[in-house]
């Protein structure tokens, strides 16, 4: 291998080539097996160098600091710290983490939803761009309500789930997380239903990963109405508008 290639290799590894130099070297790499092999071996050492570090104890408060800071920058709900319950709705960010495990009755949930949907039906009639709020990074999302999802027969199923109703600048979203659901076959999906007075509105479909976990976010738009329960069924395919299969989880 030519000497100039050794030097370039090191400069490349060190990230000290400019964009043009990088491209030129990468073109060379596609043609030169010797350089590729040398680079591969040097990278092995490079990747091992970090492990001469001492492993330090992480400061405990750091997790909350990091998650809160990220929330302030990007509008993510922070989720760090302990799980103590709280009864009051406070918009202060540090209290948001206590929401995750607060329980409200279904009735009060319906009232909150009704109030919100009235406020936001009104706004949508004015032509305000409500759904656009859902995408903005500088608008903090706030948990309005938390729901626990349980199987119809807990003796037969270890599935479980949680749903969070989020208010982001007047846009309502339902975020669901499930675990322990059975694996799907073929075209099967799990389908979410928003239930009100016995009628069921399609809340979307999802599939689970090999460990039975699934995630879904449903943006509640102006044409939807409040719900007082959530159900999840196992469907033969994603095309249904009414439940065809059995319920696997629900509030």
């Amino acid at each position, binding site marked *: 291998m030519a000497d100039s290639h050794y*030097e370039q290799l090191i400069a*490349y590894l060190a990230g000290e080539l400019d964009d043009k130099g*990088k491209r030129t070297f990468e073109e060379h790499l596609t043609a030169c097996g010797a350089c590729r092999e040398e680079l591969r071996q040097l990278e092995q050492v490079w990747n091992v160098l970090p*492990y001469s*570090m001492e492993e330090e*104890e*992480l400061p405990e408060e750091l997790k909350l600091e990091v998650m809160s*800071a990220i929330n302030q920058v990007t509008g993510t709900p922070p989720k760090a710290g302990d799980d103590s319950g709280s009864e009051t709705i406070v918009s202060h960010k540090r209290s948001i983490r206590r929401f995750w495990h607060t329980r409200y009755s279904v009735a009060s949930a319906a009232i909150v939803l009704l109030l919100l949907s009235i406020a936001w039906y009104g706004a949508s009639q004015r032509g305000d761009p409500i759904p656009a709020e859902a995408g903005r990074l500088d608008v903090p999302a706030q948990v309005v309500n938390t729901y626990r999802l349980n199987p119809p027969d807990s003796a037969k199923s270890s599935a479980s789930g949680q749903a969070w109703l989020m208010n982001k600048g007047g846009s309502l979203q339902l975020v669901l*997380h499930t675990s322990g659901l059975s694996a799907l076959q073929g075209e099967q999906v799990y389908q979410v239903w928003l239930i009100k007075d016995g009628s069921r509105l399609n809340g979307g479909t999802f599939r689970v990963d090999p460990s039975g976990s699934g995630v879904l976010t449903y943006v509640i738009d102006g044409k939807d109405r409040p719900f007082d329960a959530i159900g999840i069924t196992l469907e033969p395919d994603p095309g249904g508008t009414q439940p065809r299969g059995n319920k696997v989880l629900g509030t």
Partner: protein
Amino acid sequence: MQQYSDEQLMSMIANKQSWALEALYDRYARLVYSFAMKTNRDVQFAKDVVQLVFTRLWTMEVGFDSRRGQFVNWLLTITRNIAIDQLRKLRKQPTAVPYEPSVWESVAGDPLESPDSVVSRMWLKQQIENAYRHLTESQANLLQLFYWEGFTLSEIANRNGEPLGTVKNRLHQALKILRKQLASVREEGID
């Protein structure tokens, strides 16, 4: 808790699932913090680096592509780049290293490189310390200045009053010696 792979967590992070960011934090924050502490023995500095690294993960628009190599190597490269950037700011030096390693820079390596338990990391640390004993003082010093303190090869050459080529060559030699030592450890059949 289900065992998601790092790649799965990263794609959930790209979908703004904040619990996945928390899971990655639980998995890797200690390594990131410890790495930062080695570059600059300052707790606040290290905390800032952790925050910058995880903010960076959160704001990436795509998940992690395993063609980039093993996640932990890529994560530590990002950590190094961020730590060095911060260090250079402190020293009022211009930016040297980009945040994102290019695809070639992270070729899939062998399992030795990403120890996933404290025990295997301690063992690896021992091996590296043994390998370091085969370096000359100027080689070891170069690695410290270059890898851990973020000085560029040109800056180091100027500081020593040497040609840049000499410094590059010394770095190459140092890496080759370490590689030889670590490879012979593997060949002895230590699993």
